[in-house]
Each structure stands twice: as structure tokens, then as C-alpha cells.
């Protein structure tokens, strides 16, 4: 039915099946939209946030998806600036993921703020001292960059490409993409960093506060670093999932291997940095504010030392070792486990740097604050996930996001033929 729109030389599932799944995820999306409208019209009393949890699930989701969406900027950086040519075969997909992640983040922010209609005050009345201002500026600019990077991809659709104007536009945009990639990488470096700074500058919160260089706390650099590590992990993970669903190879193994290796080294170095940071914080920074290290991990029903072990050892050390060794990367199971853990590590880190920061009592006469999100919060967090899946479905069906797909298909045919 829609075969005219599907890229040439590739096979896609039946239109009925496609629509069925669109409807399924569309229903989830709708659930999220209902929750979103509730939050907008009735206010944030619809959430389980409170005065101790001004930041909660949403801010975590924001930070996490921006971290794992970091694949876009980092792959772009490698491809366009460091000239890793192989990565051109995954860059489209990385851009798509980035676009989805950043769109999601902006949407969640629009729900999260108490006065969405005044959201633009962050630009109009900007306070340059605030990390959030930096985040807002870089995030919006980078989202614009991602949109610009995503547009040529849309223009490559078979039917659109037929229009000479769009064809030429797409061609020209490709030509200057390196500039955007460089801009994106620069912006990304800053907003990933300033998201880290969001927690790190909180000198009233000994669990979050870190020293640093100039105006930037260590978390500034750690966040960028971990995004550079977990972003590619997430890209690999999702492409693997799509390959599993499509039941065919979409990206050549050498591309995946290269990206995995780079992700591995990023993760390994990040983990070392994170361990040093944690050590310094636990032995110098926190005690200076009167806190024993274990104060942060005891006397509460959830946050035990396990979470630190999970973040640093299980989601840091272990996947690093897998990804930096050739043998580790070669076994699909190990590779996928490692990229999953790498991605999870960033998510856990963001959770800790948002929710545990809120949970830890600072005044001696207060106790731990515990929180569980309301369904409205969960639904609105899942909303962009469902939306993202739908966008991937549509993009995969109609756009050449995997340039090697046709080649791999032909090779397969050829081998059968031989």
C-alpha cells in the first residue's frame, strides 16, 4: 500500500502489521498525553512530587535520556571532526536517537515546570550564573542542530527526493553537516556538562556538591564524559534491538565494533575518573561538611551502598572490561550486556544525582525523604518513549536511516546465489 514510500531495495513488514503496532504505541502515547494534560490543567498536584522532591522522576528522565542520547553528538564528533569514516553508517541512526531523546527532554521539561506558559522567561530573564540557564540555551540550540541534522534524512525519502528542490537542499545540507556536527558537539559538551553542574553546584547539598575548576564542578566533566560513553552504548543497544525485531543485520559488524571499542574506552576512563571523584568526595568534600560517607547510604529503606556498587562496579568496571577487550566485544551476548550496563550506569548515576540528592537529610533533625512517582508522572515519562518508538518505526520504514541495509541485503542475496 505504501510501497512507493519505502526506500528502494529493502523489505518492510506489511502495512497492516505496521499500523497495528503504531496503534499499540499510539495508545500508550495517548495515555501519556492524558496525564500531560492533567498536569497542565490541574497543576503539579497531580504528581507525587513535594517540597522535598522539587526534582524527581521527570528531571531524572531528562538527565538520563539526554545522557544516553549523547550518542548523537559523540558519534558526530568522531565522524566529522576525528574523521572516523566508518561511522557514517550509523550516524543517521545516532542522529535520529538524539533527536528523539532531546525532543523528549524538552517535552518533559515543559510538563515539569509549574508555569509552562512562562517557560521562555529562562531566556528572557536569563541568569547567567545558573547552570539551568546554560542547560536551557545549549539544549534548545542543540535541539535545533539535531533538527537540522534530521531534516536531510527526511528529504532522502524516495518520494520527497524526487522533488528537485528537496533533492538539492538535501545534498547541500549534507555538504555543510560537518559544521553543524561541530556546533552540536560543542553545544552538547556544554549542556551535558551543565546538567552535571546542576547537581554539582548545590553547595547546600553535601551529597551532590563537588569542587571543580573555575565555575565548573567535577560533575560537569563527569556528565559529559559519561554521556560520551553511554550514548554510543545506547545507540548500539537500540540498533541491536531493531535488528532483532527486523530479523536482519542493518549495520556492518566492523562499524559496531569500532563504536563499541570507543565506547569501552570512554567508559573505562570515565569509570576511573568517577572512582577518583567518589573517593575524593567521600574522604574530603563530604567530611568537611560533617558527613560520614556511610551517612549517605544508611538508615533508609532504599539507598544502600549497593547503589554505588551497581553504578561503579557493575555498570562501570565490568562493561568497561568487556568493551575494551577484543574477546569481550566479539561475543554478542557480552557486547550487548556491556552496552546495556553502560547505558544503565548513566541512568543510575543520574538517578542518584537527582533523587538521592533530594532524599538525603541535611538538617540533623530531618530524616530521609522517600518518594514514589504518581501514575501521571510515570505516564508522562513513558509518553516520549512511546513517541520515540513510533518515530523510529516510521523513520525505519520510510527513510534510509541504515545506509548499509541494502548493501548487506544484496551481499546476502549474492552469497545465496553463489
Amino acid at each position, binding site marked *: 500500500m505504501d510501497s512507493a514510500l519505502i526506500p528502494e531495495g529493502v523489505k518492510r513488514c506489511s502495512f497492516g502489521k505496521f499500523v497495528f503496532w503504531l496503534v499499540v504505541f499510539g495508545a500508550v502515547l495517548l495515555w501519556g498525553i492524558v496525564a500531560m494534560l492533567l498536569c497542565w490543567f490541574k497543576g503539579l498536584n497531580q504528581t507525587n512530587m513535594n517540597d522535598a522532591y522539587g526534582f524527581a522522576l521527570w528531571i531524572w528522565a531528562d538527565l538520563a535520556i539526554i545522557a544516553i542520547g549523547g550518542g548523537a553528538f559523540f558519534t558526530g564528533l568522531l565522524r566529522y571532526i576525528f574523521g572516523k569514516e566508518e561511522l557514517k553508517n550509523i550516524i543517521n541512526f545516532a542522529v535520529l536517537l538524539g533527536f528523539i531523546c532531546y525532543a523528549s527532554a524538552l517535552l518533559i521539561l515543559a510538563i515539569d515546570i509549574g508555569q509552562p506558559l512562562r517557560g521562555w522567561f529562562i531566556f528572557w530573564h536569563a541568569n547567567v550564573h545558573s547552570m539551568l540557564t546554560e542547560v536551557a540555551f545549549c539544549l534548545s540550540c542543540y535541539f535545533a542542530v539535531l533538527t537540522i541534522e534530521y531534516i536531510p534524512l527526511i528529504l532522502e525519502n524516495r518520494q520527497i527526493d524526487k522533488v528537485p528542490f528537496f533533492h538539492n537542499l538535501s545534498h547541500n545540507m549534507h555538504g555543510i553537516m560537518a559544521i553543524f556536527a561541530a556546533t552540536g558537539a560543542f553545544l552538547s559538551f556544554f549542556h551535558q556538562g551543565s546538567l552535571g553542574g*546542576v547537581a554539582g553546584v548545590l553547595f547546600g547539598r553535601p551529597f551532590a556538591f563537588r569542587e571543580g575548576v573555575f565555575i565548573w564542578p567535577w560533575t560537569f566533566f563527569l556528565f559529559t564524559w559519561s554521556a560520551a560513553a553511554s550514548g554510543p552504548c545506547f545507540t548500539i543497544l537500540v540498533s541491536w534491538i531493531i535488528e532483532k525485531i527486523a530479523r536482519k543485520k542493518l549495520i556492518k559488524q566492523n562499524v559496531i565494533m569500532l563504536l563499541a571499542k570507543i565506547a569501552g574506552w570512554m567508559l573505562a576512563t570515565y569509570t576511573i575518573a568517577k572512582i577518583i571523584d567518589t573517593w575524593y568526595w567521600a574522604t574530603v568534600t563530604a567530611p568537611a561538611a560533617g558527613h560520614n560517607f556511610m551517612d549517605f547510604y544508611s538508615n533508609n529503606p532504599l539507598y544502600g551502598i549497593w547503589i554505588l556498587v551497581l553504578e561503579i562496579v557493575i555498570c562501570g568496571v565490568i562493561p568497561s572490561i568487556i568493551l575494551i577487550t577484543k574477546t569481550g566485544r566479539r561475543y554478542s551476548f557480552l557486547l550487548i550486556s556491556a552496552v546495556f550496563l553502560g547505558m544503565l550506569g548513566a541512568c543510575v548515576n543520574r538517578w542518584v544525582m537527582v533523587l538521592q540528592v533530594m532524599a538525603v537529610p541535611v*538538617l540533623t533533625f530531618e530524616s530521609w525523604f522517600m518518594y514514589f512517582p504518581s501514575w501521571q508522572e510515570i505516564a508522562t515519562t513513558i509518553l516520549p518513549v512511546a513517541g520515540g518508538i513510533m518515530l523510529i518505526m516510521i523513520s525505519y520504514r520510510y527513510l534510509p536511516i541504515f545506509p548499509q541495509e541494502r548493501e548487506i541485503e544484496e551481499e546476502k542475496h549474492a552469497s545465496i546465489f553463489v
Partner: protein
Amino acid sequence: MKEQHKHTKAKKYGMVIDLDKCTGCGACMAACMAENNVPFKKDESNKLDSITWMRVYKLTNGKKFPEADICYLPRPCMHCEGDHGHAPCVSVCPATATDYSHETGIVSQIYTRCFGCRYCMAACPYHARYFNWWDPVWPDGMEKYLSPNVSPRMRGVVEKCSFCFHRHQLAMNKAYTESRRELKEDEYQTSCTQACPAGAIIFGDLNNPDHAVTKIAKPDHKHGGRPINPNAFRLLERLGTNPKVYYLSSRRWVRRAGDNYIRDERGQGNH
């Protein structure tokens, strides 16, 4: 005029709360609510969504009967000076909706500019900032008691203790009409200070050596405002928030409860 302005010395309004005198009666809380048009709702027992610019905490010494002891601690906004006005909350606000005034030392909050990101709440270790999770609703007829000096806040913005800044404005207006540039100590007092039946709250200019706050707390301006009075302390002194609310207590465990200490550490509460 400009010349005159220059001569007006910068104020640093602050508070001293005598915890020996505080009886935990709660008058300061109600005085604050009544003065500042603080809304209320059917259930205010969840203290995590209950707006109380001034909140009285109950501290316990953790000992068993009959050695147990309790102490009340009223907590307004600390109006932290931080390092040169970089209060924890002020520097993080992305929209400059909260500001540190170097003229008065008061941390302000502009409700109409705040767009409700709540970053300041995450930044404040004292939980002095409150979010309007709901639209403020007064039962039919009760709007009549709302003060015209303080605008009721809309849903979705953050609010907090202002040291009754509107009273400062009114006092200044009055002084100006009388061709004065300086306020007398009793001309500007917060609602809680005025109401406290125990006289436990004292308010004034910490830069003015004649004001009671300065005489009692004896802030050491060379060392970040740390109190010289051995019975005085500030909450979470070690974080460097540089608060302008001082507490007095003759009890060591109370002073010690004002800050965190690592195990076996002999701290400032140790006088």
C-alpha cells in the same frame, strides 16, 4: 539625591532566635501566615506540601526516659548571604526570579517571574522554599482578610519567607515622607518577631552595632558572619551558606543539632 543614597549604609537584616525562650507555641507560624496571605487547604498534615514560610521543628536529644529532652526550632528563610550574595538558591535560579539584595541582605522572590522549575528548592538545604502545588483557594468570604500588601501567589510558583519585606517598604516610604533615609530599629520588624509571645525572636540590622541582633549574636564579619557568642550558632554553618538567622541555646545538644559532625568530631557545638 544620588549623593545621599551613597551615604545610606548597606543593611544586613537578620534574626536571632533564642531557643531557650521559644516554647514551640506556633504563634510565629500563624503570624506569618496571617501577614503574608499564605493559603491553606483541607489537609495540611503532609508537611511536605504544606506552605509554612516559618516552620517550627521539634528536636529531640535521642535519650531515653527520663533523660529525654525536646527543643523547638523555628525556621524562617535563612536569607543566606553565601559568598558575596551567592546564596544557594539565588545563583541557581535560571530566570533571576530570586535575588540577594546587597542593600538589605534580603533574599527576594518574584512570584510573577518564577516559572516553577524548583531548582531553588533543590538547592536550599533548609527546606525553606515552598511550591504552590495547588491554586490558592480561600473559602467563600475569607478573601476578605487578605492583606493588600502581599500578593497572593498563583499555582506553579515557588514562595518563601521574605522577612516581611513589604513592611520594610512601608517603613521606608514613611521614613522618606519624613525626609529620613534610615529606619529606626523598631520601625521594621517582621510579623513573627512582633507576635512571638516569648520574645524569642529578635530582628534587626546585623551591620548596626546598636541593634539587638548584633549585640546578642556578635557576628564576626571577618569570618563569614560566624557568631562570637558561644551560645549562638547557625544552621549548617559548615556548608558555607552564610545564613543571617542565628540561634541561641544554652544546651549543648541543641547547638550540636544545628550542624552535622562526623563521628567523634568535636565541633563548634562543643562550647
